[in-house]
């Protein structure tokens, strides 16, 4: 059966091309791989190869300036000693494998390619679902926090110990769980979170790595692909910038890219957020960076008890989890349950303080600041409700909106910069889903939009302060003394 040679589409944007030059003549014998012609596309001149052995039966278009649309036959190749009669037969045969019944789809795919090239984010989505602009059809069922047995004992311990306990308990429970990172074993952790683990579990499961964040992350993800459950500690999340490609492109996306085949149960954890007097490269909140990424779960605990229950949830979760601990909270002491199955739900915010007048939403260290602000506001007769998000992805907007429907006022608080922030996303979502519930513009308290300075006074100026939260809440409540 003679083969039609078609004008090829050689780039996702190409709709037609010119024949710059034929490198074969009619009646010439060609082999698979021989260059037949040079085609001028919208971008470059590209060679067209034969993929079958045969004889050039007919050239349908000479080289020249004419634009020939993609998929139009430009020549016919005779196979296995066919004669010239096969040429007409091939051209009339619309069922040949190279026929035009695919043209419609070709067009769509070309558009898809164009959308991708121009950077349009969702232009190629086959479904006309403006899923980013609509509430989901069914709101997720809220998952209640677990009820602990009545005889559970509690201990007052610091967050670093609570995290250590969570790690140790999960490592005892599941032999596939291991921890790796810089100084996690013999040194027992740069922040002493892994104290005692090397002694208990040994070097096979508590692994000191060289200082190579990028490959530690990648190696951990590969081990997770193979079914292990790594906990990768970054000495701080500032250093995870060296590894963010593996977190985003490998850990977060592979399940989707594999059509659900490849599991990646891994926890990336370490201190995040502002530290004290360490300046711009060691003092930054990365929450919104990771919260942006589909395929990740992002958790950030506000106290020691939360840290334990959330880290255990992170390790047991089958997905990649970015677990953002706050360096300034490591010494924070709270009453923590001594219970092996103390596992908090992922994706459910916590009401840290109930109130009816204004909603303060935050996470990590911002929660303590919001609680302090709530105390001060109470003195002015304003009852603030404080929401600890706990999970930045998935984000529990139901709890936030239910609160705003009660208080009609919202202040978001975070250490991160204001542009493309967690609070910015919450504000956008609240105005979209609960516009009528709002009695005042949504207020935001953020870190100041500047690299973190070293000088003590400038550092304080760059950080969110309790007084700013109080002032923002009063503005939202239209209390006059906050006008300044």
């Amino acid at each position, binding site marked *: 059966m003679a083969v039609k040679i*078609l004008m*090829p*589409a*050689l*780039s*996702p944007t190409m709709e037609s091309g010119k024949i710059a030059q034929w490198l074969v003549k009619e009646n010439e014998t060609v082999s698979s*791989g021989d260059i037949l012609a040079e085609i001028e596309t919208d971008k*470059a001149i*590209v*060679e067209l*190869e034969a*993929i079958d052995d045969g004889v050039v039966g007919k050239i349908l278009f000479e080289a020249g300036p004419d634009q020939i649309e993609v*998929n139009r036959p430009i020549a016919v190749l005779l196979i296995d000693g066919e004669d010239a009669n096969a040429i007409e037969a091939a051209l009339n045969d619309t069922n040949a*494998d*190279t026929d035009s019944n*695919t043209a419609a789809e*070709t067009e769509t*795919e070309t558009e*898809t*390619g164009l959308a*991708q090239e121009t950077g349009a984010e969702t232009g190629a*989505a*086959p*479904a006309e*679902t403006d*899923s980013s602009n609509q509430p*989901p059809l069914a709101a997720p069922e809220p998952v209640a926090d677990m009820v602990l047995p009545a005889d559970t004992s509690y201990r007052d311990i610091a967050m670093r110990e609570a995290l250590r306990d969570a790690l140790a308990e999960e490592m005892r429970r599941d032999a596939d769980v*291991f921890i790796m990172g810089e100084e996690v074993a013999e040194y027992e952790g740069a922040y002493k979170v892994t104290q005692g683990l090397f002694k208990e579990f040994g070097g*096979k499961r508590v692994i000191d790595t060289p200082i*190579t964040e*990028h*490959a530690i*992350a*990648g*190696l*951990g*993800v*590969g*081990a997770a*692909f*193979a079914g*292990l459950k790594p906990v990768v500690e970054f000495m701080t999340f500032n250093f995870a910038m060296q590894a963010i*490609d*593996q977190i985003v*492109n*490998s850990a977060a996306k*592979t*399940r989707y*890219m*594999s*059509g*659900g*085949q*490849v599991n990646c149960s891994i926890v990336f954890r370490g201190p995040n957020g502002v530290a004290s007097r360490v300046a711009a490269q060691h003092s930054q909140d990365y929450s919104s960076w990771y919260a942006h990424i589909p*395929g990740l*779960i992002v958790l950030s605990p506000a106290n020691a008890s939360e840290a334990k229950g959330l880290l255990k949830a992170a390790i047991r*979760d089958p997905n990649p989890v970015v677990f953002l601990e706050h360096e300034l909270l490591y010494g924070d002491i709270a009453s923590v349950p001594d219970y092996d199955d103390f596992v908090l739900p992922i994706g459910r915010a916590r009401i840290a303080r109930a109130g009816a007048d204004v909603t303060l939403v935050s996470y990590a260290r911002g929660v303590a600041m919001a609680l302090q602000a709530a105390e001060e506001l109470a003195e002015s007769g304003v009852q603030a409700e404080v929401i600890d998000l706990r999970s930045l992805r*998935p*984000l529990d*907007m139901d709890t936030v909106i239910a609160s705003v429907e009660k208080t009609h006022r919202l202040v978001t608080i975070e250490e991160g910069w204001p542009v493309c922030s967690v609070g910015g996303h919450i504000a956008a979502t609240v105005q979209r889903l609960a516009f009528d519930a709002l009695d005042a513009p949504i207020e935001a308290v953020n870190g100041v939009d500047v690299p973190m300075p070293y000088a003590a006074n400038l550092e304080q100026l760059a950080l969110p302060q309790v007084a700013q939260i109080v002032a923002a809440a009063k503005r939202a409540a239209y209390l006059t003394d906050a006008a300044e």
Partner: protein
Amino acid sequence: MGLQFYGEGMVSKATKKKTKLPKQQAIEFWTDMALIRRFEERCGQIYAMGQIGGFCHLYIGQEAVVVGLQATAQDGDQVITGYRDHAHMLACGMDPNRVMAELTGRMDGYSKGKGGSMHMFSIEKNFFGGHGIVGAQVPLGTGLAFANKYRDNNNIAFIYFGDGAANQGQVYESFNMAKLWNLPCLYVIENNRYAMGTSVSRASSQTDLSHRGASFDIPGAQVDGMDVEAVYAAGKKAVAHVRSGKGPFILEMLTYRYRGHSMSDPAKYRKREEVDKVRNETDPIKLLEARLLADGLIDEGQIAARRNDIKEKIEQAVDFALAAPLPPETELMVDILADSGDTHGR
């Protein structure tokens, strides 16, 4: 020392020797390589018809590398590679129909049409992708090997990457840990001479890439990657080293890609004569075919019959891939997370 090109030295010697392979295996190698060649040629063609979108990187010319090496793998060994990955999937025993269906973005593809040419996987066949970020598969593969050692299961990971990826920093971070912990990694550098349009000598201060493990104490060997027998022989030695617990090994496969980097590459950075010379003098399929014929292991008629079988098999794959349905729109938000309800992005 510049790059050695084929047809000189090493390869002309290789063509003279008789095949040392058992007949059955030699014919299998030939068949596997010819199948990959035909698959890739048809990919190129249906790409040109607009049926494959985006980027598509063909393996034509490099077939001996993956065919010879995968013949040394045992059950449970993992394979991971970059985006020039169709051949690796076929060599791992993945179904050409489903690979082709992924290329055309259909529901019956290995990734339900969500991955495309560069991102395909088969857990069943221990093929872990298919990765689009140059060099990213090297730490990932090292992690697969880590899991083997953790489980003490005597499996090894085949980690393929190109001469371009060989200059990425994370490759050396991986080498360091792999040797530090003696992980069962077989690193295969597929040196096809060009990282996109940049030749090895324009990108690498040391062009003998088999030495890239030297400062980590990882042994390496440079192999004629156009000669499937040479690949197989070197692979067996390297695999034995890795499987014995001695840690990683680097195989630099000197090979050549006939086509451009991707389908839209006009390949103006090299002369046509260079490509023609490799194709005419050291083509891996022709090389083995000549030996098989000379040794009387196969005749022209049998070769033609096999070519026809392959052609038919690939036609079936194309038919399957073009007839398969697009993923339903409900697939858009599926497979983001494991059983977590996918309620993100509200």
